[in-house]
Every structure is written in C-alpha cells, then in structure tokens.
C-alpha cells in the first residue's frame, strides 16, 4: 500500500462543550474511495468539515490533535485556508448550484484567482463537465441558469465545479441522499472513474452505497471511530459487535 496522504492523529473536535469527534486515528491512502458510514450525529459530516476547515466558520468550534494532509498539519496558523479549500473539493448533501449560469458555476472558483482567459475557461468547463458525466446533457445550454437543472444534474454540476479547481481530494457528504436511483447510479459511476485521479472520501447514510463503491470503509459512532477496514472485510467479518449491529440495521 502507498504512503498515507491524510493522517489523522489523536484528533478530537468540539462544538462548544460538546465533543463531536473523539480521539480519531487513521490514515487515508491515495486514489482510494474511503467510505464513512454511521448513524446520524455520529460526526461523519463534522469530520469532512474539519478536513477543509469549513468547521472554522461555526462559532465555538475547537480541535485537539492533528490532521496531516500531504504531510502538512492543516490546523497550524500559517496554513493558507483558501488554498487548502481549493485543494480539497467538497460536495454537500443538497446540491447547491449558485444562482448563476451553468458556465459561471463551473468557473466560479477559477475566476476567484483572477483567471479570465476565455479559451482557457471554455476548456476547463468542457473538461470538468465531461469528467462529471454531465457534458452531453448541458453542452447546448451552458448559459442558462444552473437552477433549472434536475436534482441529479445539479449534483453532478457541483462535482464538475470542484473538478474545475483541479483538487487532489474530493469530499462528498451524502451526495445522493436526495436523488433517485438512476441519478445515484450516474454519480457512483463518475466516482469510480474519478478515483484514478483523486482521493475520495464519501460520507454516506446508505451502507449499501459504501459496499458498492468504497475501497475501504470506516464506521463512526457517536464521534468515535469504531472500525476501519477493507470494505469486503468490514461488511462480512466486522471486528466489532457494534459495527455488526449497525450493518444489520439493529440501530441507527
């Protein structure tokens, strides 16, 4: 196995006095899809929000321990948070197209750097939409509002918007929770292709989804990492009774 690209070490997170993540220790390897499963309020989303430091925006958010990404501790004061977030794309549970055209949504992050070369932007838009599997559906209406797309298309647009920034990591927070099975399948197909170029962390409420596409799966429960293993192992021979109970639908 390759060198770990994300190393979580004795990491805890608090919202005010409430401990939302307790002493996590695990690694993420390049070009894998790491699934994170667990019941509601188990800290899955908070963990993602810590990785790109969106958790900073919540008042009272506080951490202990370290997360190293590419060998760099992301919580050190000298870290450029804006650069970090560009490197780590995030897809949210509800697709959130910004209220502008499809084209402008894709180039939003690129334009922030002051990059305005028309030809370059056009290439980025086509590339990103191709990779997200949306190009053929929208190529004739790039200038129309992104809000007019269907839910599944909007979510693929959100993925394309991240790819436009050429990130190294993609975080997905229950990306298919509001989508129909066909849209879900399309997104899972894109993710399988994308892991060649990116390292992907997928938080999902749907354990079957993790079983389908995650290389390894982690089970979170009340802020603790109960177990992390190769997906087939975790699903067939879980080491912990709680994992087994969750997978069998006994709680959660």
């Amino acid at each position, binding site marked *: 196995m390759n060198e770990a690209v994300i190393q979580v070490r004795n990491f805890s997170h608090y919202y005010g006095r409430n401990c939302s993540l307790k002493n996590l220790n695990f690694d993420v390897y390049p070009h894998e899809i790491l699934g994170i499963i667990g019941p509601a309020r188990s800290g899955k989303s908070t963990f993602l929000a810590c990785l*790109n430091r*969106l958790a900073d*925006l919540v*008042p009272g958010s506080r951490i202990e321990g370290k997360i190293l990404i590419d060998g760099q501790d992301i919580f050190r004061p000298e870290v450029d948070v*804006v*650069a970090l*977030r*560009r490197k780590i*794309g*995030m897809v*949210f549970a*509800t697709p*959130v197209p*910004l*209220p*502008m055209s499809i084209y402008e949504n894709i180039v*939003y*992050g690129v334009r*922030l750097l002051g990059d305005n070369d028309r030809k370059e932007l056009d290439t980025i838009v086509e590339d990103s939409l191709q990779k997200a599997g949306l190009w053929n559906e929208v190529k004739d209406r790039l200038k129309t*509002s992104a*809000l007019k797309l269907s839910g599944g298309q909007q979510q693929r647009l*959100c993925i394309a*918007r*991240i790819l436009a*920034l050429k990130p190294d990591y993609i975080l997905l927070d229950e990306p298919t929770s509001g989508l129909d099975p066909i849209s879900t399948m399309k997104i899972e197909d894109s993710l399988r292709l994308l892991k060649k170029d990116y390292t992907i962390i997928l938080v999902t409420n749907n354990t079957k989804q993790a079983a389908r596409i995650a290389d390894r799966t982690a089970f979170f429960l009340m802020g603790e990492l109960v177990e992390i293993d190769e997906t087939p192992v975790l699903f067939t021979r879980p080491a912990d009774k709680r994992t087994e109970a969750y997978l069998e639908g006994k709680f959660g």
Partner: protein
Amino acid sequence: MLLRPKTEEKIAQAFMYFFTSVAVLVLLFILAVILKNGVPQLSLEFLTRNPADMGREGGIFSTVVATIFLTFIALLVATPLGVGTAIYLTEYTIEGRLTRIIRFGADCLAGIPSIIFGLFGFILFVNKLKFGWSILSGGLTLAFMVLPTIIRTSEEAIKSVPPAYRLVSFSLGSTRWQTITRVVLPSALPGIVTGIILSIGRSIGETAAVIFTAGSALRMPSSLFSSSRTMSVHFYILAKEGVSMPKAYGTAAVLVIAILIINILTYYLMEKYIRRKL
C-alpha cells in the same frame, strides 16, 4: 352565542374584505383628489419654468431640480453607509450584544420624528459645520433619516440569501469579501434596491427635515451650498400661506406621479434583471 363554523367563516371574510377595501379606498381617494385638482395645472410650461411672484405664477422647475439634487445626495451618502452596516452586521459579526445594540439603535433612529432630524441637521450642518441652508445640509440630513430604512431592508435581504451559498463559495476557496461581492450581494440586490426605492420616496416627500436644513429659497440651485426649495416644501408653503391652491395641487400631482413612476420603473428593472440572472 355560538356561531356555526360556516357562518363564522362568512362573517370573518366579510370583515376582512371590508378592511381591505377601506385601505384601498383611502389610497384611491387621495390619488383622485390630488390628480383631479392637480392634473389640470400640469403642462410642459409648469414643469420647465421657474416659479415667479412667490409661486403664484410660473412653474416649479427649480423645485424639481432641488428635489432631485437633495435626494441624490441623500442616497449617495446613505446607500454605502447603510449597505456597509448591513454587511457588517450580517457577515462579519456573530449575533450578540453588540449587533443587538446596533440594530436597536437603527430602529430607534427610524422612529425619530423627521422634524427632530431637521433640528439636528440645522444644528450640526447648518450652524456648526457652517454649510448654511443648503442642498448639502439638506441632503446629509435626509441621508441620516433614511439610513435605518436602508440598513434594515438590506440586512433582511442579505439574511434571506441561503447560508448554503456562502458555504459553497467558501468551500470553493473564496475569501469572505469575494463571497460577499460575488454571491451574497447579487442575490440580495432586489431587496436592497427595494430599500433604496423606499428611501427615494421618503426623501422626495420629506418636508419638515428639509425646511430646516435646505431652506426655502425659490432660486435655481447653483451649487451644493445654495439654499433651495424642494417640491414638498414648495407645496407646504403654497398651501399653508394660501399663496396659490391650484399651483399647490399641481406640485402635489407632480410629486405623486414622480413617486409612482419611480416605483413602476424600478420594479420593471428588477424583474428584468432577476429574469436575466436566473
């Protein structure tokens, strides 16, 4: 006595219908009186000639110009101050004692009678800063008067922008300021513009605050420091001193029609702008 729910429903409906009609009728009545008496006075000459003989003769051109200048200055000052305050309150602070105090202050400011603003402007701008009775003093006074309206409407507009937009924008690597200028303000624009229109309406119609600060000279204003008479002050003087009721009605009609046109035009522009965006 107990009523059957159906009967109760009918009676309630009748009452609501009655109340709504009264509200609409009052508006129509005012419009009808002013337009009936005022419109016959209107002509190109009335709009383009300066008042003569204390307003008994001639038109109202200089008062139209003064009104436009005053309103323009008021909004030029109040818009950046108000929108800036709203952005600070919503985007840069955590809801707490400080924001509550600022918001309470803005609400109090909104409740102060306009004549008090006039007195304040008279003391500060006219006397202390020695701007005299002038377009500048009047404009600045109006700016402070409409400031709370702009703050509160902008604040509501900014607050109604979905928080998810900000989260997405941050996650794509934008700074706070980029998020505000590229996502939040464009989405909040219709609401902010509505606040500005309300303020234009209030500025054009304001009399008490203006008479103390811009004065009532009937000359054509020639600089920021000329004393001048706005349309509403002109109307007040014509009517109160019995100079000329027909001219007073004519002025009132121009005021009412101007406000109507501004409202219609802005709603049209907003509609068009939003359609284009989405």
